[in-house]
């Protein structure tokens, strides 16, 4: 037996040596393969050397995108990432300056009356191929957006133009649109009804120009690639590798090019992973990073200067007001409102930096008459009153003729914040009122489906502004608004919205919206939660970053690099 054991261990030894040789060969093989691939790649010339976050010598900043921009055709784009890109490479008749004031874009002067708007286009406004931007480019874009065949989801934002809605419904041909171009550089817009904020509307991407001959030459691929898009904004897209990177260079045909201080914006990474975004920032590869709650400790550790911003979105629990629903009962809704503690939700539960507890449908940024609307007209405060809430609940139970309360369904999205929030409300309603809540967690499209078909009692919902006016929030609960998925239906409220839509007197409008705000509290239409916020960090050398509630956000068109800042 002794022989065999000696034999065995010597076998292991020499086999082990052999294995070691294989191991070394493998490692060398991989090294060689890598080297070959690298050499091959540099031959092809595709090797992209990674640069730092900010490069003062070349005037370049490097950033990430949360996702591949789904749609760069301005007549079709609906999402925020696409809006950000479009906002950097296109320009409308009017634009917003770094303070958010409306100033001239393609138009150098304009007049807006009750029934008509006239825009005089500047001679220096050019497309990136050097041809002038003409009034016809706007007419083409707007007619195309409204053409039912285009099926643009943002067509409604053009409805203030004469005949726009009828065209979009297919009742009139697109050529019936109330716009005309007496000459190349004059655009006359007839209005369907008077509107106080038409200047803000025309700075919205859906109003941006599209040049007909170029559009037709792209054969349905307009905006699909860097070379199937024509630019008239501060930057042009010089390369776009789908899913990987998008590079913008300063547009040398842009009329204001001398004021644009960055040469290149390189969106070099595309990922929605918050942790990865943070790692890119930590590694000095990107000049901006949004902060997820779990990233905050990292920011503190590194003593980064944390900045905050409210993006204008308001979040709330929306009730189902359809006739057969328990939540149609006012006493039940009041009971729930009386235990709704939005500051506890924001400060103790979700703990997201930048989020503001709220008691109104209207966000704080909206203008009133002389000051911010919410400062002129604070929403009625509903103090927490559990006893009163229980009395209301008892009233509701009697009115509805119930023995005991069946569980109420709370429809939510499927993400960590929604989970925290829905579980918080579940426990509050149980502890304070003894109500059972069944959480119905759904991914985005399924949640939309259930909201639209009315398959819920309460839903965690939100609304972001389409333009900077009280109306974009006020008309949310108009009975005809399709986004009013809880189907709140109140003739008094509807009348206020109609009046506000037609009025050109801001003092009167502000009063109307204040009354809407009161109705929303008195009628317990929603349980207000918070105004959504964002916290972010930037490279200290990057200056002049502008955040916007509506339009391209973050906006780097006014940004510059300051080498000395640290």
């Amino acid at each position, binding site marked *: 037996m002794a022989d065999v054991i000696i034999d065995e261990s010597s076998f292991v030894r020499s086999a082990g040596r052999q294995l070691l040789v294989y191991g070394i060969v493998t490692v060398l093989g991989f090294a060689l393969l890598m080297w070959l*691939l690298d050499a091959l790649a540099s031959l092809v010339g595709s090797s992209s050397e990674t640069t730092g976050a900010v490069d003062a010598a070349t005037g370049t900043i490097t950033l990430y995108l949360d996702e591949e921009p789904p749609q760069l055709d301005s007549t079709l784009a609906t999402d925020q990432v696409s809006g950000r890109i479009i906002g950097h490479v296109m320009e409308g008749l009017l634009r917003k300056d770094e303070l958010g004031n409306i100033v001239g874009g393609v138009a150098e002067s304009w007049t807006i009356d009750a029934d008509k708007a006239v825009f005089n286009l500047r001679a220096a406004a050019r497309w990136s191929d050097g041809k002038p931007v003409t009034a016809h480019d706007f007419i083409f874009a707007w007619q195309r957006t409204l053409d039912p065949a285009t099926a643009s989801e943002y067509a409604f934002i053009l409805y203030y133009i004469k005949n726009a809605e009828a065209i*979009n419904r297919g009742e009139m041909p697109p050529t019936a649109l109330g716009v005309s171009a007496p000459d190349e550089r004059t655009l006359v817009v007839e209005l369907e009804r008077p509107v106080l904020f038409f200047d803000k509307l025309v700075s919205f991407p859906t109003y941006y120009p599209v040049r007909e001959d170029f559009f037709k030459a792209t054969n349905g691929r307009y905006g699909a690639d860097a070379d199937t898009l024509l630019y008239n904004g501060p930057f042009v897209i010089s390369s776009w590798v*789908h899913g990987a990177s998008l590079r913008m260079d300063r547009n040398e045909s842009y009329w204001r090019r001398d004021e644009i201080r960055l040469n290149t914006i390189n969106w070099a990474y595309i990922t929605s992973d918050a942790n990865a975004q943070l*790692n890119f920032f930590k590694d000095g590869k990107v000049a901006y990073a949004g902060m997820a709650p779990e990233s905050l400790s990292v920011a503190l550790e590194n003593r980064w200067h944390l900045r905050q911003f409210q993006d204008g979105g308001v979040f709330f629990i929306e009730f189902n007001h359809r006739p057969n629903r328990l939540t149609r009962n006012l006493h039940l809704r009041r009971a729930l409102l009386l235990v709704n503690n939005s500051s506890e939700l924001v400060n103790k539960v979700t703990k997201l930096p930048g989020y503001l507890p709220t008691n109104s449908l209207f966000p704080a940024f909206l203008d009133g008459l002389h000051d911010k609307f919410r400062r002129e007209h604070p929403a009625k405060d509903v103090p927490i009153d559990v006893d009163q809430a229980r009395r209301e609940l008892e009233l509701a139970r009697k009115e509805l003729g119930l023995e005991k309360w069946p569980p109420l369904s709370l429809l939510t999205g499927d993400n960590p914040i929604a989970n925290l929030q829905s579980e918080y409300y579940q426990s509050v309603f149980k502890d304070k009122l003894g109500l059972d809540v069944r959480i119905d967690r759904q991914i985005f499209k399924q949640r939309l489906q259930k909201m639209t078909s009315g398959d819920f009692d309460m839903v965690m919902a939100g609304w972001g502004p389409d333009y900077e006016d009280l109306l974009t929030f006020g008309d949310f609960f108009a009975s005809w608004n399709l986004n009013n998925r809880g189907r709140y239906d109140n003739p008094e409220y509807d009348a206020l919205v109609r009046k506000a839509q037609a009025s050109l007197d801001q003092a009167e409008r502000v009063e109307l919206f204040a009354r809407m705000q009161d109705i929303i509290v008195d009628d317990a239409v929603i349980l207000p939660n918070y105004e959504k916020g964002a916290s972010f960090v930037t490279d200290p050398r990057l200056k002049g970053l502008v955040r916007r509630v509506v339009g391209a956000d973050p906006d780097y068109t006014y940004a510059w690099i300051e080498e000395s800042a640290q």
Partner: protein
Amino acid sequence: MFRYTLKRLVQGLITVWFIATATFGAMHLVPGDPLSGEKAASAEIQANLRAKYGLDKPVLQQYFVYLGNIARGDFGISFTQKNREVNDIIREHFPVSATMGLLAILFAGAGGVLWGALTALFRNRLPDVIIMFLVILGISVPSFVMAALGQLSLVKLNAFFGATVLPVGGWGTVRHMLVPSLVLGLGTMAYLTRLMRSSMLEIVNADFIRTAKAKGLPAARIFSKHQLRNASLPVVTVLGPAIAAITTGGFVVELVFAIPGLGRYFVQAVQQLDYTVIMGTTVFYGAFLVFMVIAVDLVYGLIDPRVRLQ
């Protein structure tokens, strides 16, 4: 050989047809409207969108239209990127996934065979215990943890050297590919190590090994010619499905390392109910998997003379 190959190919096509049908069915059973968006659209706009994507027709008719288009190799236009064809998406992003997947499978295959042989050689001794512990870790730790850890160590590495040793993410050069493909291949490597170890252990006591030893063949020769080669057959068998799994399963790694692969489209399309992209990527990946398995079966004969096919 030719007839066998042909038979397998026909079977493969039937499988792909089955995949397409099952996907089509499952996709339409998922609740939710693929054309719905955050902002509610009017009935007219919705009708126009439905007409544009052919969703206004009866489901059965849609099915045959789909099938006809797939047969012609046309997967249609994406629902979320309304000016991009699914064919373009696959053409642009699959090579990235494939490159990363191929590297990963090379890592996994070579690593699995070598570590497996090592553990078998030193069974129940320290190297075996250590490696098998790591293998259990590799199999059980999910890829999003691995990817995050991998990226974090790159950040630390670069901070330590004060320069970019290896990029933290992105795509373009070999240096971008290294860590992501390692992370991607790690799970498979662990699995293959275990497979290799057990198949080695089965063989060390086989009759032909004893004969070889009795004949007095040199140990190194027995080890590499008789043990290693025989034991790696099961590894080759699972390599086919593993290649497909790795090339399709890169979603998390692609997300974390900001790599423009197809895996992201594959997963996000399902969340967004992007019918055409779901169909396109699933059928494409399904076909890829099926033909990988066939290819491996054919290659098998080259490695093992005993299974050479008539």
